[in-house]
């Protein structure tokens, strides 16, 4: 079995590299998505990126260009300090989410693409990652991760206690915008290969496991990244061995690892109380 999985990895090295790269970056960014309680933004941006990719294909533009332009536009709109008096921001995100989901389907339906392209576009497929896709992804995801890690302190302080941070002279709006632009770019770069479902899963499941097990931000991020990498290897290996859809297999592996983390947490709590 191990030999057949390793053969699969050798056959699709770009798929493995793309999964590991997307997993690493999204799992680190996802820690703040959960801490900031904006989980919904993950799936909203993923759907917006899918719409951007669909529009790009229709207009024969590079997919990343459309995805990045649309997600950054949504990020900037959502980051504006305008609090609608009667509506919470989540409601606006919900409207953007449903509109983007429906429009993406309508755009691809009217484009004349085949069913396979449509499915790949909407759900992504790691297996189809080409060396060009991988290079493009790395060119976006590595600087995004570097920026978030470099500015981790002001970003953390901004999210931890916005008001005190402001008094301390931290440019909270700027740091918030930087983080959400990084998130938008990461989601757009990852969406073509990973699709909305897997990108969302990478943002939420590993970070949730990290937060269950870690007590320091750096440790939480390391656990989150490790869960994402392990989930990618096991999920992809499982899909290659059993000829299953890769992205969905990785999602199942990541959620299973989250359940394991929850059980470990429960066990630790039990041992502490006994």
């Amino acid at each position, binding site marked *: 079995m191990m030999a057949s999985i390793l053969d699969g990895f050798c056959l699709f090295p770009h798929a493995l590299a793309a999964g590991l790269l997307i997993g690493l970056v999204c799992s680190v960014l996802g820690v703040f998505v959960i801490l900031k309680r904006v989980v919904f933004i993950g799936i909203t941006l993923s759907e917006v990126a899918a719409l951007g990719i669909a529009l790009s294909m229709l207009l024969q533009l590079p997919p990343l260009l459309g995805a990045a332009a649309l997600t950054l536009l949504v990020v900037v709109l959502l980051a504006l300090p305008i609090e609608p008096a009667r509506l919470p921001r989540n409601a606006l995100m919900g409207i953007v989410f449903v509109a983007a989901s429906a429009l993406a389907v309508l755009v691809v339906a009217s484009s004349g693409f085949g069913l396979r392209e449509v499915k790949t576009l909407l759900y992504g497929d790691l297996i189809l990652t080409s060396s060009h896709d991988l290079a493009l992804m790395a060119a976006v995801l590595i600087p995004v991760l570097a920026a978030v890690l470099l500015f981790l302190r002001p970003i953390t302080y901004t999210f931890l206690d*916005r008001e005190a941070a402001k008094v301390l002279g931290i440019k909270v709006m700027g740091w918030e915008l930087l983080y959400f632009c990084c998130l938008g770019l990461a989601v757009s770069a990852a969406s073509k290969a990973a699709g909305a479902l897997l990108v969302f899963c990478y943002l939420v499941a590993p970070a949730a496991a990290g937060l269950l097990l870690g007590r320091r931000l750096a440790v939480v991020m390391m656990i989150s990244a490790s869960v994402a990498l392990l989930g990618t290897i096991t999920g992809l290996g499982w899909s290659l061995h059993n000829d299953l859809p890769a992205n969905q297999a990785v999602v199942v592996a990541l959620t299973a690892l989250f359940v394991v983390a929850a059980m470990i947490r429960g066990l630790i709590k039990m041992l502490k109380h006994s």
Partner: protein
Amino acid sequence: MPKEPIIICRGLHVSYGRQQVLRGVNLTIGKGGFLPLVGPNGAGKTTLLRAIIGLVRPSFGTIETHFAKEPPGYVPQQGLIDAMFPVPVSQIVAMGLYPKLGWWRRGGRSGKQVVVDVLERLGLSGHGHKGFAELSGGMRQKALIARALVSSPEVLILDEPTAGLDRESQSEILDHLKQINRRDGRTIIMAHHGEDMLNGVAKVVCQVQHGQVMMRRQGHDG
């Protein structure tokens, strides 16, 4: 002899939309003073503090400050800090060093020592490694005071630092503040929900009501 003024508010008006919260506040706070702002909920105490530290912009009037360039130490209401964050108390306190360090510099050994010293001063030695959620209400408040104190600001501004605490913790916090004011000479302005525990802490209180202020002498002074 009157103290040198450190904060002067002239004709201060603050509104949230159509609701006018402060209506022409004139207030002078002397250097090294201890001024509790007292008054009922919704009177405008927090808004006045927020206007002084620049978190809300006055619709009319001016605020003149005469303290050093560094920002004042600020202790927000306890609920504003997210206890779910996986950040130890020592790092929350170290946040107060940000104006001196910026985003690129680490505090180094001296920065760590300053944090340890301020935690010790507030009776939180041995709690620096804990998460904020693991602390009691009184300890959380002391951690926030430690964060405000760590950069040795001239002015300390506190928003209801004893809210939600039992009497013992309230009195402990007020004792710490009294010491910080008398021993270090720091100016303290704080919103406070009642006057019963202020005897011996401050000579005068500022009564805030219907968006206006009135200075009153306290009954006893310790």
